[in-house]
């Protein structure tokens, strides 16, 4: 019977940084453990330690005992056996997929492990994950959801005994989240799921371990009570399963952007917009599945793309902050980034960055790419703030943010909405419930305004079994 047992006394990176201390996790056949915690709490490090990557590939050290389906991955001999026994799904499909087509990606796992029936298995797996029709497409032509499905296929095509998943719902729409949960539920062996959005998995896991500062802050066993959920939330974990739409707090002070009778897309229309407005004083959310045209709408409003036809009006300057904040940074240090934004934008973004990141200036000498995901998001928004936009366009601004950073982001957006129209494209039901004043849904090629309650129902019903 396959098992995962890890008792880690201490885990350090090659720099000497101690990332984990006194962390124990165990899952036996058919049991699932969720590891949650705020950004930087050591969740991903735990997976790197448990799989032996930390010791065998990254030059770090792990003191403790690990049993991964009967092997010790901390030893070189055991680490060689990890791929045969373990399926690992990483957080970002772009950083997991190595091959140019889905067929090659799945074959890569099987051929590495010497499967004689690699071809048949690969096709079976692609068919099971709904990718057989796109087996020889270039990976870049797949949607975000299809890329996630491909990582699930390539990570489990060899029938591993145990499964480890790192933030498997990051950047996914709730419909694909639903598919991922179904997949997690169907896996027969023990699983460790690292995920800060614990709410998605509370119904399928047996235990929740919350990490904080590299240590175990709390453990919760199924069934999870309301008290447990409150405690998880207090520890920075997004655990609230039932969301309630709050009353809109903003009001339309002046219309900043309008799209009417327009069709948006690249060569062919992706989204038809009958009537869309965004006002100063409001936070407007745009929801819909991956590939439904939300980002296209934001890019059209930002002037980066032209509509195929119809009216697009924006009064003043629009500023678009992309989903991946890394593309927003052009300079080798945060300090230079902020200074350049001030020089060209006309407003000093440092107070915003310091208030958000809570750095007091200590982060400013670092390269932007070394910041945590949440900090990079802050920096992207701080840069946008410097340009005094009248229309601030944020693409999936809450991806990868823990509850604490999320709450500060919502407060910032509320404050920015007093001087600019704020439009967010998001899958995050919580953001819609708690921050949005109005909601548009991109569904089946049309953008329509929907009530908050309806939008919330749409997003929440998509992932629930």
């Amino acid at each position, binding site marked *: 019977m396959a098992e995962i047992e890890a008792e880690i006394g201490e885990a350090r990176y090659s720099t000497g940084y101690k990332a984990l201390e006194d962390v124990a996790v165990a899952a036996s056949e058919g049991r699932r453990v969720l590891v949650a915690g705020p950004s930087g709490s050591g969740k991903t490090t735990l997976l*790197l330690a448990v*799989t032996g*990557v930390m010791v065998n*590939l990254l030059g770090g050290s792990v003191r403790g005992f690990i049993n991964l389906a009967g092997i010790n991955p901390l030893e070189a001999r055991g680490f*060689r056996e*990890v*791929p045969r026994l*373990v399926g*690992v799904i*990483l957080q*970002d499909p*772009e*950083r*997991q*997929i*190595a*091959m*140019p*087509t889905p*067929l*090659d990606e799945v*074959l*890569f*796992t099987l*051929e*590495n*492990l*010497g499967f004689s029936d690699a*071809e*048949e298995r690969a*096709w079976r797996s692609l068919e099971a994950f709904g990718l*057989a*029709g796109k*087996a*020889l497409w*270039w*990976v*870049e032509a797949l949607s975000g959801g299809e890329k996630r499905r491909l990582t699930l296929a*390539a*990570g489990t095509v060899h029938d591993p005994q145990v499964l480890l998943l790192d933030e498997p719902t990051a950047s996914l729409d709730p419909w694909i989240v639903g598919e991922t949960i179904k997949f997690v539920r169907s896996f027969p062996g023990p699983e460790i799921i690292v995920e800060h959005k614990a709410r998605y998995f509370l119904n399928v896991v047996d235990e929740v371990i919350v990490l904080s500062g590299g240590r175990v802050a709390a453990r919760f066993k199924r069934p999870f009570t309301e008290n447990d959920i409150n405690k998880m939330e207090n520890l920075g974990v997004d655990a609230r399963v039932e969301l309630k739409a709050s009353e809109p707090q903003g009001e339309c002070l002046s219309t900043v952007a309008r799209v009417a009778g327009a069709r948006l897309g690249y060569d062919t229309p992706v989204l038809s917009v009958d009537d869309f407005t965004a006002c100063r004083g409001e936070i407007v959310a745009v929801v819909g599945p991956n590939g439904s045209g939300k980002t296209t709408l934001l*890019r059209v409003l930002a002037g*980066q793309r032209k509509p195929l036809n119809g009216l697009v009006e924006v009064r003043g300057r629009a*500023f*678009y902050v*992309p989903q*991946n904040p*890394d*593309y*927003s*940074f*052009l*300079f*080798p240090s945060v300090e230079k980034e902020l200074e*350049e*934004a001030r020089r*060209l*934008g006309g407003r000093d973004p440092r107070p915003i960055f310091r208030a958000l990141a809570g750095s007091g200036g200590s982060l400013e000498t670092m*390269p932007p*790419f070394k910041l945590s995901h949440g900090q990079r998001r802050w920096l992207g928004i701080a840069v946008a703030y410097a*340009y005094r936009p009248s229309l601030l366009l944020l693409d999936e601004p809450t991806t990868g943010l823990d509850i604490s950073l999320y709450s500060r982001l919502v407060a910032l957006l509320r404050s920015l909405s007093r001087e600019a129209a704020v439009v967010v494209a998001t899958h995050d039901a919580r953001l819609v419930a708690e921050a949005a004043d109005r909601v548009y849904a991109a569904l089946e090629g049309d953008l329509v305004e929907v009530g908050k309650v309806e939008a919330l129902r749409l997003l929440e019903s998509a992932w629930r079994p």
Partner: protein
Amino acid sequence: MRLSGYWSPRGGPDPAYLILYSFSITLLAVVEESPRALLVLFLVTGVPGLTLGFLRFGRMLVLLPLTVIGAFINAMILYYLGVAGRNSPVAASVGPLVVPWYAVNATIVIGLRIASIAGAGLLLSGLANPRDVIRSLEALGAPKGLVFSLAYALRLLPLLFSELGEVMAVRRQRGYRRVPVTPGDYATIMLPLLSVSVQRAVWVGVSAELRGFRLRRPLRRGPPRPGRWETLLAAALALQVAAVALL
């Protein structure tokens, strides 16, 4: 829907045979000096390859006549500097300009050589999918590290293009010039691209190792039995080898 097979569903010869053919023609074109033998290579490989290339890449083939003109100018400069062709008979003279047979001959040899090599490469790229070529390289015994790097490059190229588009859009939005001019401009483009690429490469490496890359053994999948296309390639190659040997 195609539910089996390793190869992309397109007609044409097996990529492994095409690789061997292209490699052999390139080798013959590099070592051969005889214009007559090179003419055979050009007619048998260069013409079909360039025709296919013209259909796929169109204007890019303008580079070929430019290369030939460059070869001629180069030969003339060497002649006038007295470095080569000093005793060559004169082929033509236009006023004070003398064109020696040496320059004519060198231009023909280089032109035919380049056209044959380009034709062989264009045949390969025109008749086989790049992913099939990479998979065939592994079947032919290329090191797994090289094959992985090529496959990853193929995965990365479209991603890099889309990332470049993102970075250029950010630059424009932040008030930097559309067309990069100074080294600083280029640095602001390269920095995000490289930073993202390095991070991604680390994680792809972790992903590959966790999926057993270090356990990978050479794939013992030889090329399939030769069919009509492969027989045609073998005959064409035999003809050209004979031309090189006899002419």
